């Protein structure tokens, strides 16, 4: 072989130098899955303890961030006064009402557009244009239209919920396996049976993904709506607290919103597990 060959073209007659083998060899596992789970929980717990400690030591002013124990005590006090439950109730009611209204409109419109090219020509472009507007930008208009009554808040939640449900319903229906639809036709199914037995169940994974996303949007819409203009609900609790610098109450409302977010996500997951048990991706244990 000539010596003058450029080093790049030199064929690799030599074996590449062994890389540090230890980097890839598997070490015996010290921590089992249980220990890792315990660790994953202990980190936030330690944070909470540190927070409490700093508050007690006076390093954190109660006006800035009250101790977790103080927030908890406030929660107990507000429950005893009856305010927390009634505010939580009116917030939940708004969310549920808005979700049902917006969800029904989104689902209905999505089903129509998913099935019919005519409906798509009629509605889809308008819906997509409306969707491009951040729904929270409509807030001032909503206050002008509805004042600070329930209507405005429910409207805002509905608006936020409608789009994700609409889009995922259309998408889900369009993605149904055409071979199954063909089978339905060969089997002589009526249109109604075709829809109820094949098309909607086939679209369900996508629709439920929309529901999950819409639940998150519903809470976001509610937080904003209640913070701007309201006289009952979790948001109003926070606003009243701001007037009197009750940081403990403000922190409490944030914790409640977070808790509700976690709960609604759990509901969405439970729905997926229950309704999509046939689906290999959603079967028990397949998803975290």
């Amino acid at each position, binding site marked *: 072989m000539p010596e003058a060959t450029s080093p790049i073209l030199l064929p690799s007659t030599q074996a590449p130098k062994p890389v540090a083998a230890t980097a890839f060899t598997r070490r015996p596992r010290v921590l089992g899955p249980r220990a890792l789970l315990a660790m994953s929980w202990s980190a936030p717990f330690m944070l909470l303890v540190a927070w409490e400690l700093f508050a007690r030591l006076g390093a954190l002013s109660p006006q800035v961030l009250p101790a977790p124990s103080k927030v908890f005590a406030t929660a107990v006090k507000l429950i005893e006064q009856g305010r927390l439950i009634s505010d939580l109730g009116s917030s939940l009611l708004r969310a549920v009402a808005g979700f049902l209204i917006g969800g029904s409109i989104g689902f209905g419109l999505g089903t129509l557009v998913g099935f019919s090219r005519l409906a798509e020509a009629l509605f889809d472009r308008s819906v997509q244009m409306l969707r491009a507007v951040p729904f929270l930008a409509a807030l001032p208009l909503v206050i002008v239209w509805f004042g600070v009554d329930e209507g405005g808040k429910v409207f805002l939640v509905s608006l936020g919920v409608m789009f994700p449900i609409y889009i995922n319903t259309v998408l889900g229906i369009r993605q149904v396996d055409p071979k*199954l639809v063909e*089978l339905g036709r*060969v*089997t002589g199914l009526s249109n109604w049976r075709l829809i109820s037995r*094949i098309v909607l*169940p*086939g679209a369900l994974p996508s629709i439920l993904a929309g529901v999950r996303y819409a639940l998150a949007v519903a809470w976001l819409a509610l937080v904003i709506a209640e913070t701007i203009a309201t006289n009952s609900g979790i948001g109003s609790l926070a606003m009243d607290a701001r007037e009197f610098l009750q940081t403990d109450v403000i922190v409490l409302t944030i914790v409640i919103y977070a808790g509700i977010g976690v709960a609604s996500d759990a509901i969405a997951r439970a729905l997926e597990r229950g309704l*999509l048990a*046939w*689906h290999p991706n959603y079967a028990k244990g397949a998803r975290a």
Partner: protein
Amino acid sequence: MSEINLGHGAAEALAVDVRALQRRYGDRTVIKGLNLQIARGEFVALLGESGCGKTTLLRALAGLDAVDGGRIDGARQPAVVFQEHRLIPWDSLWRNVALGLDDKTGRPLALAALAEVGLGDRVDDWPRNLSGGQAQRVALARALVRQPRLLLLDEPFAALDALTRMRMHTLVRQLLARHRPGVLLVTHDVDEAIALADRILVMREGAIACQYDVPHEAGGDRLHPQAQALRQLLLAQLGVLPALAA
């Protein structure tokens, strides 16, 4: 002129009667004046190279595609078994089989049909837990449960392994001996056609080029000399073997 006459006008003995069928895609005529009669209880296999119009014919008979001319008499709602099982993944096996049947009578019929294909103990299972052969057996049960006058089989065993395919052949023969619909099997497999059919058609360029009766003496035995001779003949017709002299 195109006409599909459903259910009446056909001789009762025929499962389907196709006259001068035409089917075009744009400028290309895929089926050119095709005639085909299948008697009840008769098993007809359709061979032909890819693109010769086999599948188009089957889809026209199934009512999945419109036709551009000619008439199809007889089979009102033929049952179809496709190459893929096409089981509905979110329905249990019995609900898959009972698809489109009356709500009340559907379940017992479906259970009986599943028992017939040897899956009577899996009625509440999900399709994803089945092997390819089992899924295709469910598809067969779903086709036969509605007692069709015409059964269309679109290469239903092509995706199965050789052993499973042979077991399916045996099962199909047993089932058809009991139910006796007219059958049209579209296949690429000459041996499969000989093993199952009473009559074999070779389709070429949108029409039936020739047809052969399968000798009954062979009785589904592909090593029988008459079956071997037919096999040579068919392969020659399909352009796989050079045509035999005389």
